[in-house]
């Protein structure tokens, strides 16, 4: 269920945003003498105390390597690390925590699938389908693979509102299609894609689907079983967790059949110079000492999201999105890029005669942090024929009054630049 549908079902108790804000120390700071208004959440969200303290606690009280020692600290660290894996499995409604592999983030998770799942069997002429609105993370790993193997990438088209043209997808699938890669929520446009429909279609042709969920996990309750996907990748830092950690969920049967993609410690059962016997899932894919503190922080972020209620956060964010959209549509010369019917809390835009870069610098001096540039989605920029856009993106702690300050800062920037 997406955020809009959840809103219609009626979220019982509303989010107490001011109380929520008190949990984020960074929101107390000023930027250039003005209160920070952080509207760059799609790039990375801020972290609540619960996450910061969980990681701090690990380093202060039970820092040790995992799955290696018999001593108490290692036992505690291993337990916390594996608890985080169970937290992630719950977040995604994964059938088993054996299917959850910790990675550096979404990008590494997709690279893992490209290198361990597709590379061993892909042949020249094989095809990988991705949408026109993918982040570079869901394009470049496939491109590298294609260059080295003679496979090709095919693109699922989008319409002028920035929505996937689902009707066109079926015609693109054939017996050479090896995988479909699709972004759950577009970071550049905000579009929420009909992932379950894509998966249902793919299943008819027996094609596996990888979902880039980086922008989805902070804003909706993801259910990999209901979606019907085969791989789901996400990053902790987009959902109030630390940077440098994320996870890949994959169907157990697929993961079992895949060879390891990096070799080293942890991922082995027995090593001699003649042969190595690999460890079982999920450790087979986790070579070397993992990002233990990061994993613990991710677990804390999952627990924090559950405690606050993803639905409640999403309902609040959708109201912010509606208000911002309304205000921005009324702004002279402003064009919203990406007007899908179903959107996450992201508004990409351009303003006539004002380059996004200059806009970003000027409104930064009003304390307003936004993203400007190509958002690592250059094919999207090409589709809409813009060199770059500015983008605001909301999190649960943002306020309606912050949107007012943002709009005032836009006015000020235009006065200066036009």
């Amino acid at each position: 269920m997406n955020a809009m549908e959840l809103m219609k079902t009626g979220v019982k108790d509303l989010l107490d945003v001011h109380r929520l804000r008190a949990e984020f120390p960074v929101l107390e700071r000023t930027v250039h003498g003005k209160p920070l208004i952080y509207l760059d959440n799609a790039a990375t969200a801020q972290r609540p105390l619960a996450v910061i303290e969980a990681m701090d606690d690990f380093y202060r009280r039970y820092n040790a390597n995992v799955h290696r020692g018999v001593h108490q600290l290692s036992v505690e660290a291993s337990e916390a690390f594996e608890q985080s894996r169970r937290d992630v499995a719950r977040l995604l409604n994964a059938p088993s925590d054996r299917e959850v592999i910790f990675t550096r983030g979404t990008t590494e998770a997709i690279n893992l699938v490209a290198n361990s799942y597709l590379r061993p069997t892909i042949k020249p002429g094989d095809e990988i389908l991705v949408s026109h609105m993918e982040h570079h993370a869901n394009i470049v790993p496939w491109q590298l693979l294609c260059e080295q193997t003679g496979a090709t990438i095919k693109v699922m088209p989008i319409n002028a509102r920035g929505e996937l043209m689902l009707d066109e997808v079926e015609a693109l699938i054939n017996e050479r299609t090896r995988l479909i890669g699709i972004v759950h929520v577009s970071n550049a446009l905000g579009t929420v894609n009909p992932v379950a429909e894509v998966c249902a279609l793919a299943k008819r042709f027996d094609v596996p689907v990888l979902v880039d969920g980086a922008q989805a996990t902070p804003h909706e309750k993801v259910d990999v079983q209901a979606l019907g996907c085969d791989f789901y990748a996400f990053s902790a830092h987009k959902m109030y967790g630390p940077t440098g950690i994320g996870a890949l969920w994959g169907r157990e049967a697929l993961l079992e059949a895949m060879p390891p993609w990096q070799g080293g410690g942890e991922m082995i059962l027995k090593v001699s110079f003649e042969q190595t016997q690999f460890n079982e899932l999920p450790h087979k894919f986790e070579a070397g000492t993992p990002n233990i503190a990061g994993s613990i922080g991710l677990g804390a972020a999952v627990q924090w999201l559950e405690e606050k209620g993803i639905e409640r956060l999403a309902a609040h964010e959708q109201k912010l999105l509606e208000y911002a959209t309304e205000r921005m549509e009324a702004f002279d010369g402003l064009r919203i890029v990406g007007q899908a019917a179903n959107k996450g809390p992201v508004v990409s835009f351009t303003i006539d005669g004002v380059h996004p870069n200059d806009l970003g610098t000027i409104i930064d001096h009003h304390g307003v942090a936004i993203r400007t540039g190509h958002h690592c989605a250059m094919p999207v920029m090409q589709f809409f024929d813009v060199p770059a856009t500015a983008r605001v993106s909301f999190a649960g702690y943002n306020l309606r009054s912050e949107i007012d300050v943002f709009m005032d800062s836009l006015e000020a920037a235009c006065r200066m630049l036009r």
Partner: protein
Amino acid sequence: MLRHSTGALGGNAMALETLYQQLVLEHNRHPRNYHRLNRPSHSGRGLDALCGDDILVELVVADRVIENAAFSGEACAITKASASLLTDWLKGQRIDNFHLAHRSFKALMADSSLTNCETLGEINQLRAVAAFPARVRNALLPWKAVDQALKTPMD
């Protein structure tokens, strides 16, 4: 390293005013040499996809002297102002001088406490950019494009 006072709002707000008043009024709205050349001997592209800047610098070079220079394309105010000032300055310069000035300009952008560099003339107006580390790349882009152009003479 930033040496301007980040604590004082007045200073920063003024830096921002300085940055945009000089550049925007003069060069962003009315960039100099903002057109294609008929018969350039050299051309170089300045592309910063991350920021959305994409300019083309064209030169006419004879006997190691840059006789004419112009730029075209889409870019932010700082890139445009930098290209506008640079193309003006380039006319009549020896190639060696460009390379010397390029080094001086990079130094100027790296340290906001530096004073004017005489050879750079009007380009010194861009000094305010040094206080905006995220924007230095924009000021440097046209220089990179010229450097690229000089390495690749056209047929």
